[in-house]
């Protein structure tokens, strides 16, 4: 028997069941976060014909979380340090490139995106930071909100992106802000720097799309180089488990609206 679980339903259920518990968090000093207004886009996952996937407005960090920022989090949260974290929350690659529990070290420039981070740790940081991980829908919607002047330009961008997916050297990620790639709202480095965790990285689609030879073909309803590049991201995310860590896998934080009463649309 196959059991399908909708992660959002599970989340809603747990949220209701545990709703009586108020979680108090101190919101930390915030880096720039940017509002992504509601809209819709075409995912490579099965969708109702003619109906793009809708996304509500949300905020997302302008940059991925850096080694320095993650070190700050660890100072206040000893349980998530490399020496303390239980193996169920991260595999043995967790922060393995750092010099010690709290010090990224000489070989890890502070302004580089933090990688070797599990989904659990990314979640914990996001909550500490007053937010949460973006959903796959939110992440893809934000990342794809780019202004291309022509189909040819879009194709060239996707072509280069596929080249990046197949040639990136994860030994030394570039610094945040170095890619020169940003979406039309000013969110930077969603492409060309690292891969990023999403809250529901493993979509509950059962065997409709398993990871096999035909998967990309079944994701190509739009049959474009753009959706091919998109498919590679979906496939890579689907292969992870929540304790996975790699040298290319980091995250950025998303936030529900409203973040505070002082917010206007646009960046903080």
């Amino acid at each position, binding site marked *: 028997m196959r059991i399908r679980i909708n992660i959002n339903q599970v989340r809603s259920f747990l949220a209701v069941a545990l709703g009586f518990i108020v979680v108090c968090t101190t919101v930390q000093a915030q880096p720039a976060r940017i509002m992504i207004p509601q809209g819709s886009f075409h995912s490579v996952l099965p969708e109702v014909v003619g109906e793009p996937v809708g996304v509500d407005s949300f905020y997302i960090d302008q940059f991925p979380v850096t080694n320095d920022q993650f070190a700050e989090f660890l100072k206040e949260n000893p349980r998530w340090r490399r020496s303390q974290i239980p193996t169920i929350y991260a595999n043995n690659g967790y922060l393995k490139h750092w010099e010690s529990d709290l010090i990224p070290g000489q070989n890890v420039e502070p302004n580089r995106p933090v990688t070797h981070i599990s989904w659990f740790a990314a979640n914990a940081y996001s909550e500490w930071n007053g937010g949460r991980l973006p959903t796959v829908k939110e992440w893809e919607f934000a990342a794809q909100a780019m202004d291309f002047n022509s189909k040819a330009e879009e194709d060239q961008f996707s072509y280069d992106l596929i080249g990046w997916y197949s040639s990136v050297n*994860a030994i030394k990620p570039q610094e945040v802000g170095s890619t020169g790639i940003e979406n039309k709202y000013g969110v930077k480095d969603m492409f060309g720097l690292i891969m990023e965790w999403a809250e529901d990285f493993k979509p509950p689609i059962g065997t409709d799309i398993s990871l096999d030879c035909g998967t990309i073909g079944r994701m190509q309803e739009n049959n474009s180089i753009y959706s091919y590049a998109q498919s590679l991201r979906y496939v890579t995310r689907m292969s992870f488990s929540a304790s*996975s860590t*790699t040298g290319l896998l980091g995250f950025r934080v998303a936030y529900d609206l409203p973040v505070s009463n002082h917010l206007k649309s646009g960046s903080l």
Partner: protein
Amino acid sequence: MLVKQIINTLLASLLVFGVSQQIMAQTSEYEMDGMIFGMPEAEVFIEDYDGPPVVGEYFTQLPTLKPLDYEGNKHHEVRLDAMVQEIEVANGVRYRAWTFGGTVPGPTLHVKEGDRITFTMKNRSNEEVMITEPGKGGSPFMDQVAENNYMDAKPGVMPMPHSMDFHSGTVAKDDKWRTISPGESIKFDWIANYPGTYIYHCGTPSVLMHTAMGQHGVVVVSPKDGFPTDDKVDKEFVVVQSEYYLSKGSRDDLYRYDFEAAQTKQPSHVTFNGHQTILHDQPLEANAGERVRIHFSNNGPSLTSSFHVIGAIFDRVYYEGHPLNEMHGMQTVLLGASNSAVVEFIVPEEGSYILIDHEFADAEKGATGTLKAGPRKE
């Protein structure tokens, strides 16, 4: 915080549960037509393994094949890890390849019809793996590559999901050929039920990208009663044809995967044994009057091969390497992507013989090699 952590744990276990439920319950082992089917469920796990990436005494570097020196059947316990290596595929052309065992194509495994193989693979795309340390051990392949690192392989890191699909195995792909993430390992059994020369490759999407990036190799399953010509064969080699789709990257001197070229089947290089000139730089060697056997596999990923040896006629061709698929007196063997043949020919005279894909556009992209024949030995 604690509550959230509990929720996270619950969610994770639900996720894992949801996924594991998709794998069908395995049937138990059974026999049909003298063959064995119904392997136990594959195991996916985390291991602290940093030893040799290729383990098994019947794993060799192309173009060699380890002779089977045992009677009856054998249970092979082998390892072939997935990892990234920066390699040379032609003079001045280097790229970060996705590999099995560190070279493209990966090492050749030799087994016998009826053998059981317990296979382990760790996805080490997230770590630097040095394949050329002398004395690394584990397999003849490791010693050979330390001695003759013709691709000048250097470790790289590019964490990607990978999987292993052995065409020589008959199993449920959604179990055994499962994709594993960087840092994970998989272990499963298969039985070499049918003799033949079979490709193995990564089956993770995009399968075109994964195979074009270098994740393929060959398993030779020798027939349990041998080929009718076994006694006459003097030299035995393995030659693999495959394509690369590379163009110069903008960031550094390395080449990288060219999506457009791969989609439109316009390879930048078509090679024998993964390197444009290796079979000229290091020719196959035989003598006049000898009978040479070549296990030839067209690993693709996308083109056909019209394999011919200039100056020779294939005395025997065993299509796909099965002794019953016997043909005689062939000039050229046409092989689709993932087809293979065992070809045998008599080396007529001292001199040079050119192995070639007679589709000349491919030959001029590199699909040629040399067999150098010495004088006839009395």
